[in-house]
């Protein structure tokens, strides 16, 4: 029984790592320009397909693939920001929200057009699939890599935001965009950077998603996008540590819900996730780590 619970906890940790990575980007973009970006999940899809392309194209070592996928995701984020969101800057919040839905549908259909809607298998090098056992917990190399990469990237991000000039500028922009502009901060650059970092992390999450589940299709971004949204809201939208916490909480909650309750409830996993969301918002309307913000809604 102990082994069983340990295995479930590890499963939750892996799932949570992926949710957390996607949720961070979501929350960063919201924190800085108050945009609920529904196209964020589709960057996960792009990351997965870019990884597949790189893996098929030849003997590129795994660490290089990771870096290339981050860059591809970041580039995609920058393109989307320039093309779709910058022209909407200053428009009411709902305009940005609808624009993001449009971008999401565009990306999905572009994917269907170029890659067909058929799910395809995701090649993963054998050395990433080696199974090893820690006590009664069985893990693959890729599972371990997912957790380690996620933690490393998150630590790196927190250091960047807390202790660099760039991070300070980002926090200032998030605090008050107009005042930051008056203080001489190049907010266009900061916003672009937020998109680049967030989308880069989502791209890596796409690589992990593909490698862990082995099957990808152009619509795969919808679920991680939605779950990341939930994770970000649980943690408090706009708060980076909140998004991480929310992501891990969600991962654990999903797996433990299936793992510890009688099997007949297993298929209601997603309903359960949204019940948690509602309960948390009832008690803490700004999420676990969110700050009260004055907003005219």
């Amino acid at each position, binding site marked *: 029984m102990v082994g069983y619970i340990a295995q479930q906890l590890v499963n939750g940790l892996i799932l949570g790592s992926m949710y957390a990575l996607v949720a961070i980007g979501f929350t960063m973009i919201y924190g800085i320009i108050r945009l609920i970006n529904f196209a964020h999940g589709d960057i996960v899809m792009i990351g997965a397909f870019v990884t597949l392309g790189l893996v098929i194209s030849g003997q590129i070592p795994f660490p290089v693939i990771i870096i290339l996928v981050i860059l591809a995701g970041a580039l995609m984020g920058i393109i989307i920001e320039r093309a779709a969101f910058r022209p909407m800057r200053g428009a009411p919040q709902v305009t940005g929200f609808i624009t993001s839905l449009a971008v999401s549908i565009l990306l999905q259909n572009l994917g269907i057009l170029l890659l067909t809607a058929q799910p395809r298998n995701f090649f993963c090098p054998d050395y990433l699939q080696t199974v090893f056992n820690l006590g009664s917990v069985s893990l693959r190399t890729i599972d371990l890599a997912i957790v380690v990469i996620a933690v490393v990237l998150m630590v790196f991000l927190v250091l960047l935001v807390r202790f660099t000039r760039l991070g300070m500028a980002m926090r200032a922009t998030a605090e008050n965009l107009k005042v930051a502009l008056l203080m001489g901060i190049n907010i266009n650059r900061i916003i672009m950077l937020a998109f680049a970092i967030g989308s880069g992390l989502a791209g890596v999450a796409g690589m992990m998603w593909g490698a862990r589940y082995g099957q990808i299709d152009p619509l795969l971004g919808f679920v991680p996008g939605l779950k990341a949204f939930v994770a970000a809201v649980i943690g408090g939208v706009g708060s980076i540590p909140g998004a991480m916490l929310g992501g891990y909480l969600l991962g654990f909650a999903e797996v433990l819900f299936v*793992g510890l309750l009688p099997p007949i409830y297993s298929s209601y996993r997603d309903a359960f996730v949204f019940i948690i969301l509602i309960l948390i918002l009832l008690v803490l309307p700004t999420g676990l780590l969110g700050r009260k913000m004055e907003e005219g809604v």
Partner: protein
Amino acid sequence: MKRGLFGIFTILAIVGCFAIASLAAEPIKLGALYNLTGGMSSIDAPALNGAKLKAKLINEAGGLLGGRMLEVIGINTKTDQKATAIGAKKALAMGVVAGLGYGDTTFVMASAPLFQRKGVPFVTSGATHPEIPKWVGDCMFMTPFGDDDQSFAIADYTYNKLKARKVVVWTDNSMDFTKALSKFFKQRFTELGGKLILEDFFMMGDKDFSAQIARLKAASPKADAVFISAIPNEAGLTVKQIREAGLTLPIVSGDGFDTELVTTVPGPRLANDVYFSTHTYREDTRPEVVAFIKAYEKEYGRPPENAFAPLGFDAVGLIADAIKRAGTTEKSALRKALAATRGYKAVTGEISYTRPSGVPMKAVSIIGVKNAKYKVLDTWFPKQ
């Protein structure tokens, strides 16, 4: 004034030409409703390819009813039940003489009743719930066998040939098809004397089965086999994740596993010991099968992806055969002709509508997967 009159005449002349042209070779329209995107796409897209291929072959051989062409109008309903009902209405509004489509019961039940209400026959190419004809009515026809037959076939195989006595059953709780498949499997397997030790559930679209796998691993007593009632999207995912967790027990299922994803997603190292019951055509030497595979490869440049391609082909074949016998496309005559189908030599086996349930009696293939290769291991015949 003169110019105005001239204009009217010109328009009349053009309209007249079109009217005459359309009378001469008015095509016979069939509405083909399929989910070309979403979770069902890997079985529905090949089915539509098969349907279009049959129509093309018929047209190349001179069409039907003295030279009228058969036109298969494909409608994508996106694995969405709302889009399914809209698609059915669209097809009916276009004046189709019959509808066909779907490899899944849920979507048939969202569309076929609309055809029934208008008295237009609907032939499902791949939906297998044995009570569909009863639920929908006399305009509903099935190309494949029923779920009871395919579940009984794999249950018999699991008990008699794989010698499994204790099984775990996983069910996709979101679909009529998967629930029915599990129900019939459990019924037959326990009748044979086997024991069900654990049941687990998931939803269509789930990607992460780690929690269910941990429970399967911890099950005591140990299971001899796991029956997974899933559609293609989850077929490869579950096999891959179960094998990666170090479990080597046989995985058994029905025709939802008849997809290349079962071998490509886990890869040759992990795609082992998977057995499923499905429609007969793989490695079959009947002339219909050989001719179909050749025609499919020529048209699409690859062999048929799975059994749903020949089923789509057969659905159009059934309708064309009935139109020929009826001598008209009038809906009630066509319906009667379809119901009178006896011994139609379909690619997926002979079809006769002799059972009171309306489900055709057809043979079921048992296919085994070893090192990512498919092999027909057994053929199962239903009792009347």
